[in-house]
């Protein structure tokens, strides 16, 4: 077998929803080929039809989505002509499918082991115990600790990364010739994305299987794919060798995708001597689940542990960490929504949480919040004007003034004034997030807390909204606490970066210091997982770069890797005036 042997060919494939006219094809005349052992990446924005296209190979697209035209040929066999029963023979055995969401792609009521061996039992003549043995071997091979135990566990007992590894392992058990991986790492935390992808690539190359990788993450593509197929609104607009396409994109859509990637342009640290807008001293937040019976112990979950943080006026501070790191809790504490267990929060001269009245902790004139999900954070029953009027705090304004203020604000976030009369459902996700921003800024707050404001948006929309936020911040000079799990998103926006892990701030410093001289291993992992784009000004070629930080860490620093401590004191190493890193925790 030669390497150039084609495993799967797709010719002039068109898919459409039966209810729609032919002109509204979701996939139109797509054509590409996957060679043996190759990784072909299918990229495009959400809604571009890439997932439908991939699923249609094993006829798993939704019922109402029909194949209009074209053919799918695998090893010389026309898959479209097979009966459903014959296609089932291909599913799993010849073509494996890895889904995006490991949280929902495993059956919650079935033990992991049983799910893993389902395919084996179906397609091979193995007995149940033999199949389980194979599953175990596979888990050992992919380096999952305690494989025996995993087999008897349920999906909810495992972390997302582990689940995705198990998903991949169970697909690979059958040694398929082609693996369709639909955004296999998108839903995972940044620090594990790499290793999961690594594992997928290793396993497939071992059995010389081809991979059809569907993703919107260009860094993954750049790192792993041989070929790339760019798809826009159901049409293949560009395809070719990955390096070539990325270096010199021919189609404007490809360029657009590439330019949506964060560009690394660190800002100089804006050191002002004025008093900080918000000052957080030694703040800890614990959640207590109250015991029912007196003899039971109440469970305490410490979400934030002795955090110190201050934000200067006009300064953008990024708060970065994985889900569950306590970053959102800290953000809510700043806004006045979450009472800390200890420590103090001073917001523009006001000491928060001094009274028991929940309302007195809120200072909407000083601080505003932008939420992650633009779909659920706007009341669907209210017109935009009503939403915006709510944000205007002065009570004595005339309707005309209010209307003008709201209209001006909309224009400032690049939405037409006419949108005032619209309802949220009439807007796209990006437009809604603009409305959220407008609502937050209309009262001219000194501080904006933005909790993952772009992570629910498509990559190209993300960059636009980020640019808008950046521009508004420059113009209005408000301070901002920008909460994100993605370092790449914050690098062009933030003056300072604060990294949190397991409720503890592990490193903070000026953006340049963090990106170029990160000390803490966790920060480094995060940075390495976030690629950025470089454009060579001479050749006009793009270069996608993932940062590798040279090991300049002083040997004297012993990093506390496991942060499962409770009543311990944190010790920081001061790298420079603004850059400090957690080195260890001393038990008091």
């Amino acid at each position, binding site marked *: 077998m030669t390497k150039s042997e084609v495993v799967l060919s797709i010719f002039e494939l068109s898919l459409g929803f039966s209810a729609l006219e032919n002109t509204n094809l979701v996939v139109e005349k797509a054509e590409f080929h996957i060679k043996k052992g190759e990784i072909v990446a299918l990229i495009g924005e959400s809604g571009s039809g890439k997932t439908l296209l991939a699923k249609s190979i094993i006829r798993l697209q939704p019922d109402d989505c029909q194949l209009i035209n074209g053919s799918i040929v695998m090893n010389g066999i026309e898959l479209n002509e097979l009966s459903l029963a014959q296609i*089932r023979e291909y*599913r799993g*055995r010849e073509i494996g499918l890895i*889904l995006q969401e490991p949280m929902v792609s495993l*059956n919650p*009521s*079935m033990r992991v082991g049983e799910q893993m061996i*389902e*395919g084996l039992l*179906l397609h091979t003549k193995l007995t149940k115990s033999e199949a389980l043995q194979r599953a175990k071997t596979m888990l050992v091979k992919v380096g999952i600790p305690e494989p025996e135990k995993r087999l008897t566990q349920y999906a909810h007992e495992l972390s997302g990364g582990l689940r995705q590894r198990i998903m991949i392992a169970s697909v690979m058990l059958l040694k398929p010739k082609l693996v369709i991986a639909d955004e296999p790492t998108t839903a995972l935390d940044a620090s594990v994305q790499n290793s999961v992808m690594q594992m997928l690539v290793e396993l497939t190359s071992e059995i010389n299987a081809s991979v059809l990788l569907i993703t919107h993450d260009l860094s993954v593509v750049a790192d792993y794919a041989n070929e790339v197929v760019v798809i826009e609104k159901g049409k293949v607009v560009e395809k070719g060798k990955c390096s070539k396409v990325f270096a010199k994109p021919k189609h404007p859509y490809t360029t657009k995708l590439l330019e949506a990637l964060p560009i690394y342009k660190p800002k100089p640290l804006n050191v002002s001597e004025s008093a900080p807008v918000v000052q957080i001293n030694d703040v800890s937040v614990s959640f207590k689940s109250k015991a029912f019976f007196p003899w039971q112990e109440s469970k305490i979950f410490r979400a934030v542990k002795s955090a110190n943080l201050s934000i200067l006026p006009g300064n953008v501070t990024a708060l970065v960490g994985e889900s569950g790191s306590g970053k959102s809790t800290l953000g809510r504490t700043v806004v006045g929504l979450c009472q800390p267990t200890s420590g103090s929060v001073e917001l523009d001269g006001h000491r928060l949480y001094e009274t028991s009245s929940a309302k007195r902790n809120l200072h909407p004139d000083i601080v505003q919040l932008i939420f992650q999900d633009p779909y659920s954070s706007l009341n669907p029953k209210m017109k935009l004007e009503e939403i915006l009027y709510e944000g205007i705090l002065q009570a004595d304004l005339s309707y005309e003034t209010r209307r003008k203020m709201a209209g001006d604000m909309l224009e400032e976030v690049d939405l037409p004034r006419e949108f005032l009369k619209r309802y949220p459902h009439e807007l796209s996700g990006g437009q809604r997030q603009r409305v959220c921003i407008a609502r937050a800024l209309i009262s001219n707050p000194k501080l904006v807390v933005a909790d993952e404001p772009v992570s629910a948006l498509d990559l190209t929309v993300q960059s636009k909204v980020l640019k808008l936020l950046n521009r508004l911040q420059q113009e209005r000079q408000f301070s901002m606490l920008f909460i994100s799990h993605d370092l790449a998103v914050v690098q062009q926006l933030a003056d300072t970066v604060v990294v949190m892990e397991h409720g503890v701030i592990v490193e903070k410093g000026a953006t340049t210091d963090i990106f170029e001289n990160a000390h803490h291993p966790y920060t480094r992992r995060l940075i390495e997982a976030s690629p950025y784009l470089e454009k060579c000004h001479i050749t006009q070629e793009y270069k996608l770069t993932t940062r590798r930080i040279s090991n300049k860490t002083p040997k004297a620093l012993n990093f506390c890797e496991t942060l499962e401590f409770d009543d311990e004191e944190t010790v920081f190493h001061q790298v420079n005036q603004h850059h400090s890193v957690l080195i260890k925790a001393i038990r008091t």
Partner: protein
Amino acid sequence: MFNYILKRVFLAIPTLLIASLIVFIMVRILPGDPAALMLGDMQDARSLEQMRAQLGLDKPIVMQYLIWLSDMLSFEFGNSIITGQSVSELIFDRFFVTFQLVMVAVGIAIIIAIPSGLYAALKHNTFTDHSIMMLSIFLLSIPSFWIALMLVLVFGVELRWLPTIGYVALSDNVQEAIRYLILPVVSLALVVIGQFTRMMRSTSIDILNTEFVLNARAKGLSEIQILKRHIFKNAFAPTLTIIGMVIGSLLGGAAVIETLFTLPGIGRLMVDSLYSRDYPVIQASTLLMGGVFVLVNLLVDLLYPFFDPRVKL
């Protein structure tokens, strides 16, 4: 687990206490005096007084409640003021009849409704699905007493295949007992089938659209295998809650069927005792029904993790 059960039982105590207090006050607020009802138009002031004293109704209402409560705590349910029978005995016998009726009916309903709900979901938006749904909505919307009357007319009066009057205990004669139970069980089950089928169908449709079902399809599993292995357990969990609630409410609310088929059940007892203002019986049976409801729901909750391991007790 043990702590959980303890906690639930503990929490049920104030619920039942409040329920008992409400019932106690309500039946006494109701106009109508059991003593007067017993005497009918034969009464005169003296015998009425005498009767009230004999029934303990002459004491202040607070005293009556406290007496009843302390009796209750020592599991003394007292005697019916109408027939003088021991309330606990009366209720236990009656409850068993209803329990048997409801459990068999619900059991049959589950056996029929679960597969048909699953099947309808699988054939979502086809003729089969629509027919199953039409039928179950029909069953849901016609009152059970109407079904019961039709069954009596057809199988009892016209065809004379089955008895429509009376009750034979299983312990007496199994074959006869079954013959007597068929019609009431069927009339109860039919309505419940509609309810369960609808629930099972809608949860199954939700499950059918999940990623793990897609994943199962991608493994090459056939639809039937997917139904059996992946959908049933997940879709059954929410249905289980409905089943629990239906059992709970039928145990107290099968009075109409019990009356039509002359079954000596607890629902009929409650209605009868309400009409005759038989306070001890009303109070004890309401309390029992409350307890049973709590118990059934506890059982459902204990069973739940088996179908949905995500739920921890």
